[in-house]
């Protein structure tokens, strides 16, 4: 027992005696987790999302085109300003603006006529920065709503709209290609629109004017509710970022344990250890325990910091979280030993293990949640231990799941611990080189 405790104590002394190692293992993940947590929403409403920068080139200058720009300007997610075509192209190319909308000449007239299918649809050109595909999709969605609202408003209540309706009715009379029945029905519809428009122009009809001043609107609205650990408990993005960064940096710590053991094998210290009456179980077991203790301590400090500074609560089972953290810490230690067992030279082993670690971190969802992965990759991630660790930690913190939900992650992590441990024991080269 004296020997075992001395081996563990030595590892802890060396780790905590190295300020740089402690900094990298504790302070850096805290900083990165805080940063990513803030970027991905932080505590609800904490991080104001930046607006999409949009430029408008109005070549029409009609009431409708001006109204469209004014309508887009009311969107809280957009920042829109008028610009010339050449300048707009240059700004988008340089990444200073996300997209530019070119509203062509006669857009107002053509859009009004196209609304009732009597004319070709005008085209709004969208110039966009290809690195902002997601934002451009959002802009197109908002543009559709704004165009519908602006054009319909003008058609139903504006003077230009009334002229366009009259014009459409006149052209409809001359349209010999449309069946007579359809022509009559459409003329009646447009006539109704004209009557409505004229009625709204009348000063006696203020109430109706108010009612339709916004044009056609979406006939529904949505109400969102984030499903977290309970009603009125808001999602805290820091919970996931601290879990993700904790997992990443502890894996790197495990990698260091493996590399250190590999390096140790080439030193006199390894000869001294092997010359002493120590069993192999004790040598590897003590290193597993010390690495797991360090990993557990790092996770504790990270979650304690997240709790104190960012209000990350353990909404689920605390024993479950402790279990997941302990299982992940043991898995990391076994991973380190496996690296030491399989490694040949320090340099090549370091390269391969960094690659393996980054894959595990990436596929485990520490950087981005696994739901953004394609289906096959999500299935593949089931075989990555970090995915289970992060899922377990998320489950016990912001998802508020019970102890039973921690059992699967704990079980899978322990299976990986066993697998890595067996490989380490079988492949470890005990004799000095």
């Amino acid at each position, binding site marked *: 027992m*004296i*020997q075992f*405790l*001395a*081996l563990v*104590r*030595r590892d802890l*002394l*060396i780790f905590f*005696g*190295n300020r740089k190692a402690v900094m990298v293992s504790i302070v850096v993940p805290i900083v990165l987790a805080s940063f990513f947590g803030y970027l991905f929403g932080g505590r609800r409403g904490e991080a104001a999302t930046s607006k999409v920068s949009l430029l408008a080139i109005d070549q029409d200058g009609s009431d409708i085109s001006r109204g469209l720009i004014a309508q887009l300007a009311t969107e809280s997610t957009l920042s829109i300003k008028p610009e010339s075509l050449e300048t707009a192209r240059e700004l988008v190319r340089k990444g200073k603006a996300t997209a530019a909308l070119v509203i062509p000449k006669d857009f107002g007239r053509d859009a009004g006529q196209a609304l009732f299918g009597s004319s070709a649809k005008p085209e709004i050109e969208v110039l966009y920065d290809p690195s902002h595909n997601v934002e451009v999709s959002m802009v197109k969605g908002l543009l559709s709503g704004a165009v519908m609202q602006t054009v319909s408003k003008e058609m139903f209540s504006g003077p230009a709209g009334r002229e366009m309706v009259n014009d459409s009715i006149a052209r409809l009379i001359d349209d010999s290609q449309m069946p007579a029945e359809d022509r009559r029905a459409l003329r009646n519809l447009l006539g109704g629109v004209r009557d409505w428009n004229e009625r709204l122009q009348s000063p006696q009809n203020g109430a109706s004017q108010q009612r339709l001043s916004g044009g056609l609107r979406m006939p529904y609205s949505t109400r969102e509710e984030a499903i977290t650990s309970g009603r009125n408990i808001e999602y805290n993005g820091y919970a996931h970022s601290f879990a993700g960064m904790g997992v990443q940096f502890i894996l790197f710590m495990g990698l260091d344990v493996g590399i250190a053991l590999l390096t140790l094998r080439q*030193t*006199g*210290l390894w*000869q*001294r*250890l*092997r*010359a*002493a*009456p*120590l*069993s*192999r179980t004790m040598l590897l077991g003590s290193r597993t325990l010390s690495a797991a203790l360090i990993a557990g301590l790092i996770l504790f400090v990270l979650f304690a910091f997240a709790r104190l500074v960012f209000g990350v609560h353990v909404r689920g089972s605390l024993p479950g979280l402790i279990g997941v953290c302990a299982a992940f810490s043991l898995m990391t230690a076994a991973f380190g030993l496996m690296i030491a067992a399989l490694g040949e030279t320090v340099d090549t082993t370091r390269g391969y293990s960094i690659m393996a670690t980054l894959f595990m971190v990436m596929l485990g969802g520490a950087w981005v949640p696994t739901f953004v992965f394609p289906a096959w990759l999500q299935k593949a991630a089931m075989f990555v231990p970090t995915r289970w660790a992060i899922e377990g930690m998320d489950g016990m913190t912001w998802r508020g799941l019970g102890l039973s939900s921690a059992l699967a992650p704990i079980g899978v992590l322990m299976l990986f611990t066993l697998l890595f441990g067996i490989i380490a024991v079988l492949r470890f080269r005990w*004799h*000095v080189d």
Partner: protein
Amino acid sequence: MLEVKKLAKRYGQLTAVDGISFNAGRGQTIGLLGPNGAGKTTTVSIVAGLLQPDSGEVLIDGAKVTSDTDPVKLKIGLVPQDMALYEELSARDNLTFFAALYSLAGAKARSAIDEALKLVGLLDRASYKVSTFSGGMKRRLNLAGALLHDPEILLLDEPTVGVDPQSRNAIFDNLETLKKRGKTLIYTTHYMEEAERLCDRIVIIDHGKIVANDTLQGLHKLLPISNVLAVELDQPDRLKTQQIMELPHVETAELKQGVLRVGVHNLSGDAPGLLRWLSDNGHTYHHVSSEQPDLETVFLTLTGRSLRDSS
């Protein structure tokens, strides 16, 4: 105390140790002398239990080391060639850890640590981090680390590599003290002066094989020469040693760093003729002296190679 019997160890095509046998009694110091790569460290590693031999055996007081935790290992203290210290820990923390590896703790460990530090002259530096130590101090602490459990056999693998002469002397003094205390020392080196100063018996190893195993006096008797004439030449580049070897009564000839060393049986009888030949053939010299043949000469005689050239 220690019996090494017909040890052999191969790495693929390379035979690192080839049938090495020797014995060491209580209080004896055995020197394993040979150039780098001769098989000294492999032999020590097998004796310490770090390596399994392909054949042969090592007996300590008649018992073999049968497992990692065999109590027989308590009789051995290893001073590895590479520094076996934690630079980031203090000298005392290092020794506390090494003591614990042999289940020493508390007052017993403190006493052993103080005694070891005192022996190597580092008691006043016990609380300093090893990273602040000089190379010589580290070597002495490296030695102290092997003494804590009071082993009967000390395996010292080139314990003076890279240290200054002062520290080397300090280590020699420590080893002589240990020898007086009855410890058995197995000392590997490729420095003949060290082997000559410390060892009761010297085992000369080359290419994994023992080429001689005797006392210093016994090894000298193996030599075909009794004296060496050393001549410092003015223009050593003009002389070929082969020319000297062809002269009568010359047993060995070596020319290094401007000094011609010629081994002869009868110094007073053979030296005048040799010096005359040098003068007659235009090889002027500015200093002449005589030397007793050393282990370098023994190695040269037995292997046909210089010890230092080989290393």
